């Protein structure tokens, strides 16, 4: 995977836009943040953090695709799927500085904008306005995760499938079916069976 400087510049520009959607952030202010951000590249199917390690980074995906899963009794339960612009890391491990129970693994070749725990603390201390950015990003994350949890508890298998397919058609193309099924808490067989719902009615048969 060879990337030019221009590609990174474009990705940084996108990150700026993304952060700007939370708080107004001038170019100069964003420049101040840049030294704290590390760019990390991974091939596909690479574990970015293993079970038992302490998570060092908060990651935002510049490009690529990754998932977070929990190893349980010889099974992997996918708990998050993340694409460009999304945050993915082992949160409990990162914030409490404890060994991670979950694993973050790339699905496609992936580039992360990463910030270490210490850098993040420095960022909060040194740059005014970062607290607000952090608060708004974490608020957004909470609302999304609460929404997912609620849907998981309340909706039927079929409803969960349809809602996801409708809202994330791109992910359905990119994510292997077994991960999608695990993420939606649907048996792989059931998932295959439900796939006919994705096609328009007249094309069936």
């Amino acid at each position, binding site marked *: 995977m060879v990337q030019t400087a221009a590609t990174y510049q474009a990705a940084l520009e996108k990150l700026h836009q993304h952060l700007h959607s939370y708080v107004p952030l001038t170019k100069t202010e964003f420049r101040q943040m840049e030294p704290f951000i590390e760019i990390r590249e991974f091939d596909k199917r690479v574990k970015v953090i293993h079970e038992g390690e302490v998570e060092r980074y908060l990651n935002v995906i510049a490009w690529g695709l990754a998932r977070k899963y929990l190893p349980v009794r010889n099974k992997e339960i996918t*708990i998050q799927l993340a694409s460009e612009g999304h945050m993915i890391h082992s949160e409990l491990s990162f914030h409490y500085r404890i060994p991670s129970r979950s694993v973050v693994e790339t699905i496609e070749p992936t580039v992360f904008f990463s910030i270490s725990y210490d850098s993040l603390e420095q960022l909060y201390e040194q740059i005014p306005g970062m607290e607000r950015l952090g608060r708004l990003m974490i608020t957004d994350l909470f609302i999304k995760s609460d929404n997912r949890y609620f849907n998981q508890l309340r909706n039927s298998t079929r409803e969960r499938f349809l809602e996801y397919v409708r809202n994330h058609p791109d992910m359905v193309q990119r994510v292997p079916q077994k991960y999608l099924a695990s993420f939606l808490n649907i048996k792989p067989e059931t998932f295959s069976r439900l796939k006919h719902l994705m096609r328009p009615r007249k094309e069936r048969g």
Partner: protein
Amino acid sequence: MGQKPMPFLYVCIQKPGEAQFKTLFDMLEMLQQYIAGYVALTGEEFAVLADKLVVREFERRQLLVQVGEVEEYLSFVVRGLARMYFFKGKTEMITNIAKEGELIGSSSSFLSGKPSCYYVETLEPCTLLSITRANLEKAYRESPKIEKLGRLVTTYFVLQKEEWELECMRLDTRERFLRFVGNNPELLLRVPQKYLASYLNMKPETFSRLKNHVKKRPVAGRP
């Protein structure tokens, strides 16, 4: 931290009535202790927040928020017990139970300003210290330290949710029961058993079987 006597005294002293003053003082002290777990506020910084709080009293079994309403308050429980739930068909699904020293409210609705997916209801008579969304925003603008507090409390919300979800996947029914009872022994006495079962996402029969089992044979390893 270490700034006694309480510097927010002047905030309370404007409230009429000696008896009320004492209670309010105690309430604010409770809140200040809670906040100290996240960030050290000076007296002035705490006053920015204390100034914007309202005291709300509720009987038992009163709804604080209905499904479809926007949650206007984030509340700190000074006294009492409340639960958050929704209906799946005809079944109540409880997703949160809060007691003294904890926050309650339909948090996602409070934060997003969108209609609540949950009911919030008191289980016991409650006294709450509450702040409206508009006033909290105002406090954020007045004090960066309070904004930091907001970030840390919201982060804690996320982590708590993550921890709960992981536990539900990782632990079996018995392990979850034991863990919950170990961490919240007093809730076993205060909360109707069917609610606890719902909160732990298990059948009431399973809950009562596990409870009797534990009573007869104390958990191994305990003295």
